């Protein structure tokens, strides 16, 4: 769950959702395997005085298998996505719809399969890379459905606040989208607060920089560069 206030645009972004690990298998050889579901609702709001008109709502639902082998972990994921123009824009622009092979008259919806490999040699550093393939490309006439992701996470040592633990973090990710032939970049710099060092639930507050094409499906081909102040609730 997260909230972000754009600092250089009059926009707000909200996220609800999470990952639910349904089953985890831990054999005696220190490997672990999991299967789970995830769902996410992502909303983009404008601001008009004291009201916040909806510009876009995107929904994701998926399932994954994951495995952990020492410093390495892998995840295979199948994801469904749909995007919906906010009702405040109904008189301004026509909703973008997907159909087989491109933009048409059917509901915007598509799926991808993707694979991620993560390497975490220490508690303070993690690197990951992955690639995936959409069942249909975004733009009619463009046939490359592939995408690739590279990212890293760097954490400071923990410091104590009473019995809780806090640390700084810096993340960077690059995503290449074959159908638009564009690189999306995201950088986060913030603090992460936990009940203890081993706790899974965290509260994060971060400065976020994004540059690339808009992440909301209805505006997929609109360049977007924003700086935001964001809070995230990880569970």
């Amino acid at each position: 769950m997260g909230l972000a206030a754009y600092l250089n645009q009059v926009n707000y972004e909200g996220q609800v959702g999470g990952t639910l690990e349904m089953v985890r298998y831990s054999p005696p050889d220190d490997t672990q395997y999991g299967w789970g579901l995830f769902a996410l609702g992502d909303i983009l709001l404008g601001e008009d005085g004291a009201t916040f008109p909806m510009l876009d709502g995107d929904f994701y639902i998926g399932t994954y298998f994951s495995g952990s082998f020492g410093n390495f972990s892998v995840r295979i994921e199948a994801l469904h996505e749909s995007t919906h123009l906010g009702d405040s824009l109904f008189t301004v622009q026509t909703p973008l719809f997907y159909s087989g092979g491109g933009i048409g008259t059917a509901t915007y919806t598509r799926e991808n399969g993707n694979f991620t490999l993560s390497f975490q040699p220490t508690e303070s550093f993690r690197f990951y890379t992955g690639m995936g393939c959409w069942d249909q490309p975004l733009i009619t006439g463009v046939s490359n459905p592939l995408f690739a992701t590279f990212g890293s996470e760097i954490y400071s040592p923990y410091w104590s606040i009473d019995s809780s633990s806090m640390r700084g973090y810096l993340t960077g990710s690059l995503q290449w989208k074959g159908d638009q032939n564009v690189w999306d970049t995201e950088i986060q710099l913030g603090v992460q607060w936990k009940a203890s060092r081993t706790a899974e639930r965290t509260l994060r507050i971060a400065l976020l920089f994004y540059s690339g094409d808009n992440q909301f499906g209805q505006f997929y081909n609109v360049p977007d560069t924003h700086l935001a102040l964001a809070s995230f609730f990880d569970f």
Partner: protein
Amino acid sequence: MNKNFIFIFLFMGLTQTVLADRWDFLPAEPLFNPLIGDLREPQYTIIAPLNKAAYDGDIGQTFDFIQWQSDESTKWAWGINGASFLELGSKGNAEFPLLVSDWYLGTYFSEKSGNLSNRLEFEHVSSHLGDFYFNSSVERIIYSRESLRIISSYDFSQNFRVYGGPCYWTHLSPDSGDPRLFFQAGAELYSGYYNFFLGLHLRGYATYNIEVLGEAGGVVNQTIEAGLQWRWKKDSHQSLRTAALYYTGNNLYGQFYQNPDSYFGLGIFFDP
């Protein structure tokens, strides 16, 4: 921007004031047990109504920031919740157009003393017409509301719970001058546990939830749910539920709040 910083400083200040007590930061489970019979409680849900070509989904979470124990028998908590409720139509060919989506964001204080627990919640909801109705004759309304809700809950045993309390709309848009006070009540009934395969615990459950509102000339929304609940641990809130349910009243989605709605449905619920 300034509001964000004020929020952060208030949050830091509040945490400092409770450090002197015994406190848990970001506990794994909320102090106030979620009202699983309330279809507007944040949870992960898919419901298939049997008498209409539509599907209802809910993506939502309740998140206690802090719990603190003020004496041997009393605990307090402060947290937030957020949820998105969406209704999808069905056009065949695996196409599910968005009919409407409602978005909730709230904050609450809760308290628990023995079998009695209470929750005071301030919640914002906005409702948005889905793009299925783009260029249609269905008119969009600007639906935005805030409410204060006080719910008291009493566990007579591990198998029986009742709850209820008054609620008040502090902001209504559209505001047609209807009474702002409304009431919610309900009950949860559970069977004993049965051992299931892989060490899972299974029990049956039934819930009833009622809301009495002054809007649209007076509305009584009722939900009856009966199903099975799977848990890994008996004392954990985390569960998977499958249930049959019946709903009658007015439509729960803000864009259609004046329209009567009644359906039987099958649902899967994930309580994180």
